[in-house]
């Protein structure tokens, strides 16, 4: 009877972060639902108790149903039958279990039959589900589309479509086209999806092709399409809602992928597909996709952490059991170092994940509240602050969590040795599943492009200064000292790059600078965590000492490189 929530004390630790009081109070608007809805909380403690108990359900379903189906789902995968995507049997069972437990539409307001949960337990759910099956979280996590509808669609559309999520409606976001990839401005430039308005029926019709669409044949799809003839950039794109029951989309094929095989990745052909406009014309990419994308990147962050955890647990179990030279291999330094580093990467990326989640949630909550009443000047200021933080922390968590997921999966196979290379153990699946995380929703290289803004505008540095102000237990002061030194190194490195005044040189070193900042931030977060729980001292110590040296290496490289160096690399 494994439970993937209760067997992981770290989750409860992050759920009970001091900032949750503020978040839950805002989310529940002074607990105004308590009379109208019999499942609404009466106060902060009550809400937290519900989060905890519901996460226990998620842990139960993940540990006992989703994890048990994972191997079969990977083997079987989805297929197209009569132009319909049929999920693997296990995928369907997983979805039904979560649907029947009322866990679709978790963050939606209660008036739409949602649970009105904070983004914190929702993100935690994504992490827990991933640990059981990384392919399944893609399908489950797409309920996040409901948030985009809730944020931007008209009341009429919200009233009609949002209650469907809790009944189990699945969702997809159809953004990418065959030639567009992450360059979404290129959508429809080569004659792909175009939306035409028909006055007589008062309906928009979509025509064209979408590619690499996760769960493309979902009940509801958010589709990005070009509405403005003659435009070539982001400003000509709008967002639409398409319902599967219109049967105007052909599933051309399902991609045959390396990993996350349970998640159907579809190529879709829209033929006069009727659709509803979401929000305002021309805001599709500029506003709505950006919001959707940030949510999706946070989701991949959670997926990365979940994979890190899954890989570590498999490796740990094996290393305890496997005997070589008369003792379990976990007793050899070469092995226990690997395992400890895996564990530290889980903690570092997890603390960054939930910090980012809190930043994102606060500004989104203020955004929703601003539609109900005027925000006070302080609230507006706060919303702005957290939005800026969320914008620079989101690419950071996507970058680190996905890279760590790959590293942990790699090391897990290493710990299992030859056995890990075989299909007999789940680590080879975890390894294949991990690979996509540093690619989709923007590659690691693109996360750096987004994150470098935080280096350039001192967003990271300012936040690092905030962390510096937090009082830390005396006995780990020497670690804080190291972080202060690391910050100096970071400033030296950014200064050096800036001084050269060359764009390409700056791009060349961008990842190094972003990673330096990320290491300092995760170091501080782990150290601050150790204020609340002594166990984190160990993780903070390992992480800070390692990244101290790692940042030194980056700094040295930057200091000793010059403009000419780039020629050595240029292809």
């Amino acid at each position, binding site marked *: 009877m494994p439970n993937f929530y209760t067997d992981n004390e770290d989750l409860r630790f992050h759920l009970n972060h001091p900032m949750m009081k503020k978040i839950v109070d805002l989310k529940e608007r002074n607990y105004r639902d308590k009379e109208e809805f019999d499942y609404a909380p009466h106060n902060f403690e009550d809400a937290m108790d519900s989060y905890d108990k519901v996460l226990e359900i998620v842990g139960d379903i993940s540990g006992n149903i989703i994890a048990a189906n994972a191997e079969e789902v990977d083997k079987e995968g989805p297929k197209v039958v009569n132009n319909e995507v049929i999920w693997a049997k296990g995928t369907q069972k997983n979805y039904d279990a979560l649907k*029947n437990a009322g866990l679709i539409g978790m963050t939606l307001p209660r008036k739409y039959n949602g649970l009105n949960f904070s983004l914190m337990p929702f993100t935690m759910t994504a992490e827990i589900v991933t640990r059981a099956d990384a392919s399944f979280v893609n399908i489950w996590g797409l309920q996040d589309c409901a948030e985009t509808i809730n944020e931007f669609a008209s009341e009429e559309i919200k009233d009609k479509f949002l209650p469907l999520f809790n009944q189990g409606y699945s969702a997809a976001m159809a953004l990418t086209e065959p030639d567009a990839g992450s360059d979404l401005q290129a959508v429809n430039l080569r004659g792909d999806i175009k939306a035409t308005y028909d006055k007589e029926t008062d309906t928009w019709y979509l025509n064209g092709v979408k590619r690499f669409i996760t769960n493309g044949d979902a009940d509801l799809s958010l589709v990005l399409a070009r509405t403005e003839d003659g435009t070539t950039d982001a400003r000509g794109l709008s967002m639409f809602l398409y319902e599967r029951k219109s049967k105007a989309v052909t599933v051309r094929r399902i991609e045959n992928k390396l990993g996350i095989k349970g998640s159907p990745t579809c190529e879709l052909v829209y033929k006069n597909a009727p659709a509803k406009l979401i929000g305002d014309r021309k805001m599709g990419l500029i506003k709505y996709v950006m919001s959707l994308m940030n949510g999706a990147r946070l989701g991949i962050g959670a997926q990365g952490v979940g994979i890190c955890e899954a890989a570590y647990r498999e490796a740990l179990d094996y290393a305890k059991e496997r005997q070589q030279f008369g003792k379990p291999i976990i007793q050899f330094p070469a092995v226990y170092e690997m395992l400890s580093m895996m564990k530290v990467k889980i903690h570092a990326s997890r603390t960054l994940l939930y910090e980012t989640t809190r930043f994102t949630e606060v500004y989104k909550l203020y955004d929703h509240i601003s539609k109900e009443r005027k925000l006070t000047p302080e609230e507006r200021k706060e919303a702005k602050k957290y939005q800026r933080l969320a914008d620079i922390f989101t690419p950071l968590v996507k970058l680190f969590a996905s890279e760590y997921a790959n590293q942990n999966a790699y090391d897990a196979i290493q710990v299992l040795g030859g056995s890990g290379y075989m299909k007999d153990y789940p680590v080879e699946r975890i390894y294949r599943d991990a690979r996509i995380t540093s690619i989709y929703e923007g590659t690691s290289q693109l996360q750096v492009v987004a994150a470098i803004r935080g280096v350039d505008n001192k967003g990271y540095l300012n936040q690092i200064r905030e962390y510096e102000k937090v009082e830390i237990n005396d006995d780990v002061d020497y670690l804080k000292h190291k972080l202060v030194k690391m910050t100096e190194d970071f400033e030296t490195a950014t200064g050096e790059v800036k001084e050269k005044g060359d764009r390409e040189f700056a791009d060349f070193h961008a990842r190094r600078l972003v990673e330096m900042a990320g290491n300092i931030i995760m170091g501080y977060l782990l150290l601050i965590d150790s204020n609340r729980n002594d166990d984190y001292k160990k993780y903070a110590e390992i992480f800070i000492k390692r990244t101290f040296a790692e940042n030194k290496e980056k700094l040295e490289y930057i200091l000793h490189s010059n403009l000419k160096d780039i020629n050595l690399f240029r292809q």
Partner: protein
Amino acid sequence: MNGFKIIVLAKQVPDTRNVGKDAMKEDGTVNRAVLPAIFNPEDLNALELALQVKDKYPDSEVIILTMGPPRAADIIREAIYRGADKGYLITDRRFAGSDTLATSYAISQAVKKIGDFDLIFAGRQAIDGDTAQVGPQAAEKVGIPQITYAEELISVEKEKITIKRRLENGVETVAAPMPVLITVHGSAPDCRPRHAKRLMKYKYALTKTEMKDADDLRKELVEKRPYLLIEEWSVDDIGADVKWLGLSGSPTKVKKVENIVLAAKEAKQIDTSDEQLEEFIKELIENHTIG
């Protein structure tokens, strides 16, 4: 009517699946203090079959009935989280020490008090005693037929239920008229998980006994929302005769409990000739495995 009135018998048991060295007290009784109290596993299978009937006939009512100390109210809340409509807790100091005979008497009295039911589901046996007696005895006392070892619900029609039974050497499909008592085997489908909204709604549910120690919010809620009160039934509530209850109503006397460590390391094969079997049985008697 488009639904059935279904009673599910459930028991809170110590979790004997992961016992440590402190699991038994020196006097040979179970040390309940160190073992977590859980929903008896096969009772969860029984609840699932009951809920499957309700899935097919949504107007059905699933009532959970349990007997135990006040903290056994946990079992009722747990069942409600998973889909049961309501529950009754049979609790009274005078039940203490009841064996299977006395327990089934108490349960049969409570079942009669609920009355007018179509189906009773119960787990085959509880993991603390493993007797598998309470369900069948209760059926006898209520005077209804019984189907034991149920594994799958084949069909439910008006006044008739068809069940697949899991037997040692295969399966058997049987039908019975209602009302009927069905004991459910662990090979039946696992119970569905808790439902998030039901959990958040019913987590405030309390018995009168629990109300005494509850905070003001919960007291207030139970007063405002009557469905949150879990009813407790005493000996008098179910109209039971005390002499058939507790130690006086229990002919089972535990003579001795032994802690047996199964330590056999190798398998032994014999053929099925009479001589070999007789030889083997003698050996088993000699080493006290049987007898």
